[in-house]
């Protein structure tokens, strides 16, 4: 059964130790911040120069990339998978549904470090996370934005 054997803390720890510039985005980042949403996958936005670092770090978890690094850079994304599914965005910039350019370097410079015990996870600032939700622009991304706005209210209490 998926979700039983995978050591999540070790996984994040290996990524942190690799030095890869990897931002946890997507619903897993919402969970870290305090939103109880259902999610199957992990989503990262990775600096395109760090693909090899991430692949090397996740190899002990039997995660296999579905593209080689050059192909991933050309396409702008790839997947690491076994029983787990890790979506990795490697574009330098993406555009939101309303035409705003979102640059990895900007998000990285404003990142938040989260201590998860034996490891450190980097996530975008909440407003940047909202911007990333405007890239895919699916109905569930809109719902996530509404939840993130509620989360900001709780954080301000």
């Amino acid at each position: 059964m998926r979700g039983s054997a995978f050591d999540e803390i070790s996984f994040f720890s290996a990524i942190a130790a690799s030095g890869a510039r990897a931002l946890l985005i997507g619903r897993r980042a919402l969970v870290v911040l305090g939103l109880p949403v259902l999610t199957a996958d992990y989503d990262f936005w990775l600096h395109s120069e760090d693909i090899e670092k991430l692949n090397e770090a996740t190899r002990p978890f039997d995660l296999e990339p579905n593209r080689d690094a050059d192909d991933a850079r050309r396409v702008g994304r790839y997947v690491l998978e076994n029983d787990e599914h890790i979506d990795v965005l490697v574009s330098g910039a993406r555009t939101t549904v309303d035409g705003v350019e979102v640059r990895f370097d900007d998000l990285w410079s404003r990142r938040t470090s989260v201590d998860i015990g034996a490891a450190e996870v980097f996530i975008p600032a909440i407003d940047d996370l909202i911007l990333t939700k405007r890239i895919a622009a699916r109905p569930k991304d809109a719902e996530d934005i509404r939840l993130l706005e509620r989360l900001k209210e709780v954080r301000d209490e």
Partner: protein
Amino acid sequence: MSDHRLPSSSAVQATTLFSNRRLTSEEFQAYVDAPVSEAEREEALRLIRWFKKRYPTPAERLAYARRSYTRWRTADLSVRRR
């Protein structure tokens, strides 16, 4: 009484494609700006406060998310086997 009949694979595929579609800018903004009643807002805030109190650390929240997904998958498979 429910007969637990499952939708066809083509119906599931069509629903997945529909729910994962990229909205237009106007559609997306309409979703984001849809009015929220005070009751809905309070319910969302209550849920967030509960989650953060029950699982105060990010590591605990991540573990909860994995357990929650496993439970959901188990329930889903259970229905499919009926």
